[in-house]
């Protein structure tokens, strides 16, 4: 029976149901979690003995750069990323290569081996949506979706300047449907637009050059529009000034802006059973906090500014964030923040690429290597972990490496080991530059995360944050039958032996997607169907008509025709629209 399976006697971690390592059986029928299987079902069902193993919902990555134009630029400009890291084809799987920017097939397989079943692409420029969907469609093993980059969009900036909120709302909902994307991404608001004139913005009240909208207005308006439309996830913010010493202050101040925006995610979906409230209550989701948390005033007095942000997050409830950890080694920096990439080029002299996505946004790519011998890189390693360890309530944070910016996602097991084991951190301190110890507070932090907290950071909370916990990130009744079973016995776990944690999370004993075993001890054993999620937001027809007149008029300046702008559903693997009810 496809999609039906019984997982017996495992130590189950399902934080949304407050199940913390209880020995339980999980039953999945036709791809969904069920209370039990009938006698007839049990007769020929596949049964997995998970005795002595850790059972979690399938991993959910809510911020990863895995598909689209800039990812592909990363592949094209980095042949050296490929030739030492490759995989031969098998009768079931394609060949693939790429360490920090793997080819689509390899990326899907590598995620699946680690027990991940859902990954959201962090930045989809509207004009590159079709390309992004082509790559997502070809990425096997994973359910996917993508966030639309809107923080420097000409129409939105114009409507905000004119104060026409209705048209702005109509524009966002039309864009989500047109490009089959899921939520709002806001990258360096105002700054990327200014970059068209060779400038950036350095303060929240600095009006941008042409539209005269400030970053503060953009963040506030996007957060308000996000809730007015009822979008399942909060505004996804990449703050201004990223990657510059001292940027933590502007990040904290940006987080203050949407504090009083009332959250109203409003989707027509059936929710899996969960004990905790599975709906988000945050009005902003800050991404890769580590890159936004630089302290000091220059590279000489550079230090961690993480505490300034985590103190704010600890005392406020409207913020959730992902970490952007730095696990050392090769990475490829890729972001919609074009000027930030230019600054990195000036700093490193490395090859780089920059693109201006006409009227919409920008992007840049640059290869990067994080060295343990480098004072700043070592501090960044420590800061990424500070972000997660300083936030007392794990439900406010998500573990990422901003893959491949801080490092490739295949390093997640290493990051988990650092979070769970103080010894792992101390051993790394001994190998890396003393700034990690001197310029950050990580050395004095003795917290060691539990498996339950890791389950929150890597599946339950990413899913809850982006509004996917109605079916992902939990093993509640009615949820998708996505399960990861790790060769980790919580009763025998010795965190000082952190290599065993790495080994355990590197290759899941079983990765189960929709009730089917898809990978087993690092080997792909089945290629499952996949879904692509996007939001279908109901809008006022009149507003949409008025807005479309503007868009069509302006389209003569685009390099493609209006009719070629939308991404048709055929570009999506199993298109799964989520009905969203906007405020009337």
């Amino acid at each position, binding site marked *: 029976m496809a999609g039906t399976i019984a997982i017996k006697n495992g130590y189950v971690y399902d934080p949304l149901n407050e199940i913390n390592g209880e020995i339980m059986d999980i039953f999945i029928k036709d791809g969904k979690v069920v209370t039990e299987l009938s006698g007839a079902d049990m007769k020929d069902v596949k049964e997995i003995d998970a005795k002595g193993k850790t059972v979690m919902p399938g991993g959910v990555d809510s911020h990863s750069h895995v598909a689209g134009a800039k990812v592909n630029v990363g592949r094209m400009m980095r042949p*050296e990323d490929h030739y030492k890291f490759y995989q031969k084809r098998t009768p079931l799987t394609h060949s693939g290569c790429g360490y920090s920017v793997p080819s689509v097939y390899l990326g899907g397989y590598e995620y699946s081996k680690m027990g991940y079943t859902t990954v959201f692409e962090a930045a989809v420029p509207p004009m590159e949506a079709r390309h992004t969907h082509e790559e997502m469609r070809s990425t096997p093993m994973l359910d996917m979706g993508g966030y639309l980059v809107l923080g420097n969009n000409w129409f939105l900036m114009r409507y905000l300047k004119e104060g026409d909120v209705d048209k702005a709302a109509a524009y966002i909902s039309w864009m989500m449907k047109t490009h089959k994307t899921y939520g709002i991404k806001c990258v360096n608001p105002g700054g990327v637009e200014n970059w068209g004139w060779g400038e950036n913005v350095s303060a929240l009240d600095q009006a941008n050059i042409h539209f005269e909208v400030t970053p503060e207005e953009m963040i506030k308006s996007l957060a308000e529009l996000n809730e007015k439309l009822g979008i399942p996830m909060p505004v996804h913010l990449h703050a201004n000034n990223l990657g510059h010493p001292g940027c933590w202050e502007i990040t904290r101040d940006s987080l203050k802006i949407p504090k009083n925006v009332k959250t109203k995610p409003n989707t027509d979906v059936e929710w899996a059973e969960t004990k905790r409230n599975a709906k988000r209550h945050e009005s902003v989701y800050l991404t890769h906090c580590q890159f936004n948390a630089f302290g000091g005033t220059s590279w000489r007095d550079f230090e961690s500014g993480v505490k300034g942000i985590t103190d704010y997050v600890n005392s406020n409830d409207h913020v959730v964030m992902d970490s952007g950890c730095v696990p050392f080694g090769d990475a490829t920096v890729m972001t919609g923040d074009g000027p930030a990439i230019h600054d990195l080029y000036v700093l490193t002299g*490395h090859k780089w690429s920059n693109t201006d996505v006409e009227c919409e946004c920008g992007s840049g790519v640059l290869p990067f290597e994080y060295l343990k011998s480098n004072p700043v890189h070592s501090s960044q390693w420590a800061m990424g972990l500070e972000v997660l360890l300083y936030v007392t309530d794990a439900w406010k944070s998500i573990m990422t490496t901003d893959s491949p910016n801080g490092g490739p996602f295949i390093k997640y097991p290493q990051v988990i080991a650092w979070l769970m084991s103080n010894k792992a951190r101390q051993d790394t301190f001994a190998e890396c530059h003393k700034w990690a110890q001197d310029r950050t507070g990580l050395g004095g932090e003795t917290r060691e995360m539990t498996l339950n907290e890791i389950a929150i950071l890597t599946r339950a909370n990413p899913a809850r944050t982006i509004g996917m916990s109605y079916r992902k990130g939990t093993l509640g009744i009615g949820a998708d039958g996505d399960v990861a079973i790790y060769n980790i016995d919580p009763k025998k776990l010795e965190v000082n032996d952190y290599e065993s944690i790495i080994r355990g999370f590197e290759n899941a004993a079983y990765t189960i997607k929709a009730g089917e075993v898809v990978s087993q001890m690092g080997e792909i054993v089945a290629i499952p169907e996949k879904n692509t999620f996007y939001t279908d937001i109901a809008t006022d027809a009149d507003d949409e008509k008025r807005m479309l007149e503007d868009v069509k008029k302006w389209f003569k300046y685009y390099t493609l025709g209006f009719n070629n702008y939308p991404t048709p559903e055929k570009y999506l693997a199993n298109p799964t629209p989520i009905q969203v009810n906007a405020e009337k």
Partner: protein
Amino acid sequence: MADVILKPIGNFDLTVEAEDITPDNFAGKSADEIRKILIWQAPAQFPISDFFTVEGNGGSSAEDTTIIVDGNVPRVKRIGEKMTAGKIVIKGSAGMHVGSAMTGGEIIVEGDAESWAGMEMKGGSIHIKGNAKDHIGCAYRGSWKGMSGGRITIEGNAVNQIGGGLIGGEIIINGNVENFCGIRISGGLIVVKGNAFRTVGAEMTGGTIVVGGCIERFNPGFEMTAIESDLKFNDIECPGEYKKFAGDYAIPQKGKGILYVSCDNNECL
């Protein structure tokens, strides 16, 4: 010292990828076992005996093994790739990637070498008695980290991108080079006894380049700092007077590279 003699017998209509022809891989194997080692030709693998006659057994270890390729093998690539010890003598011309990523041992090419000889090598030595083509001791495409140790000596000429991205080690060329010699190097030493055409040391951020002949088109991003004579780098001697330049100042990382150019042959500089 055990000698394994490989005599090419043909079948090279498609190039062969022979990264398994190394002392490390032949050590401890009999001639018969060596004959059966599979090497790639296009998408398929064939035994070495399809391409070579094999005489002699491998030594007990890589150090004790010498491989003699008795003939021209310009269409056999990757001989000696990643070797750690021992010796390979190619009595004719070698194909691409000979000795790439090697960490130790010695390779002697009595004829010419194709491109990419000693790509990203870390140690050991390669001696090319004829001419060599492009990318000798260079970084892989896209990478800026080339050869990091060891020595490559070329008796004849070489062409483009010699020592690209060099971070250590030495390349000595008795003849001439053409374009982009020492592009992007950050360490190591390149000595060209003959002439270079243009873009010597472009974007270099460290390391040393010596050109004994004339650079026809000198790079604009260099600044003369001194005149020195009779240069000596350990056992490598460069007699005569040299103009010493620092660079390359054309890139944001203001260069700490050193470029010596013969005074006699570059009067216009």
